[in-house]
């Protein structure tokens, strides 16, 4: 399990008020974890602060599973480390 996954899973668990065990890379935020649109904005803002990245609305709205978001964050972090 990647460090980003572990940290993001903690955020999801806190925002949704659920156990971390329930959250896998395959978990869909809306369908499986019952996140609503406001939970998703909160999670994206959490991730922006935690990882020091920027996530656009269109990007946020195209990501459905926890694993997709984690991969997106990892890619953004990799971009930042190569460009700096």
């Amino acid at each position, binding site marked *: 399990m990647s460090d980003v996954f572990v940290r993001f899973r903690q955020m999801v668990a806190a925002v949704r008020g659920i156990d971390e065990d329930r959250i896998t890379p395959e978990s869909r935020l809306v369908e499986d974890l019952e996140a609503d649109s406001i939970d998703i904005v909160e999670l994206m*803002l*959490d991730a922006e602060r935690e990882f020091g990245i920027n996530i656009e609305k269109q990007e946020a709205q195209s990501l459905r599973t926890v694993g997709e978001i984690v991969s997106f964050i990892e890619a953004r972090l990799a971009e930042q480390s190569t460009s700096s």
Partner: protein
Amino acid sequence: MKLRTVGITGIGAHVPEQILSNADLEQRHHVSDQWIRRRTGVVERRICTREQATSDLAVPAARQALAAAGLRPEEVQFIITATMTPDHLWPSAGSTIQGRLGAVNAGACDLNAACSGFVYALAVGTQLVRSGLYDNVLVIGADVISKFVDWTDPKTYLFGDGAGAVVLQPIADREEGLIDFMLGSDGSRGDILQLPAGGSRRPSSHETLDQGLHRPVMDGYDTFEFAATAVMDSIEKVLARTSYSIEDVDLIVPHQANQRLFRPVAKWLGISVDKFFVNIERYGNTVAASVPIGLYEAVHRKRLKKGDLVVLTAFGAGLTWAGAVLRWTYSPNDGHEILHP
């Protein structure tokens, strides 16, 4: 010239009698009480009748604030009304209210910074007293948003009508009073919260009516993202202008936009969510009235007492956002009722 210390020396609030509950909305539209509560925290809101307008709420709130400060209407020197829903496009609600109060010696105008309006007006009013220009200034936040929203659109279940007012006067320096402000705007993103027609860009016509352009446009994602960021920015920036830090703050009275905002912001600030005064469950989002109604209730429910350090934060269309730091200087006399026990 020595600048004077300025404090709030009287406060009043008024909401319409008519209650629109989630249960009422459940009956009229396909929406559940649970859905509204989860997304907004609102349980009921106050709504004007067909005949009532913004000044009908503002005048009783203003009278109450004047009585609390022991002022007669003719002693008021200036009235600033923060509103985006005046009785008429012109004259201003400020002048309408001034006339109805009999504040015959006062100048009056409106200030439109949407939901941030009251904090903006407080900043302006404070400077008029601080400078020595005036001794008695009335600052009002009042809106009747219910007349401008589409009650079949679930995004509007947030809103309610109301008014609040404060009196600003010079006070002793040691009391501190209104300490500092921050005022922000980003007009380049103004389109995420907008009433498209009825202004000079698109005056009212049969076409604007047919095209539904007299109803607010509000993008949920963008609005929530902006609001959360604006609350953080206003609190951090206004405190940075003072010698105080977030740990010194006894109570934050925020614009009651959505209950869901406060948990993430408290998390990011590293404070308890209980530091935010919340009454959205009973009034909804009352636009420019929400901060003074919040202050009024916080005082009368004894969440706020003389000597407490308070932060106000507000944000809304414009985009605009605003923060204030103040040492609370007013305690109600007996006989002032809480709004709705």
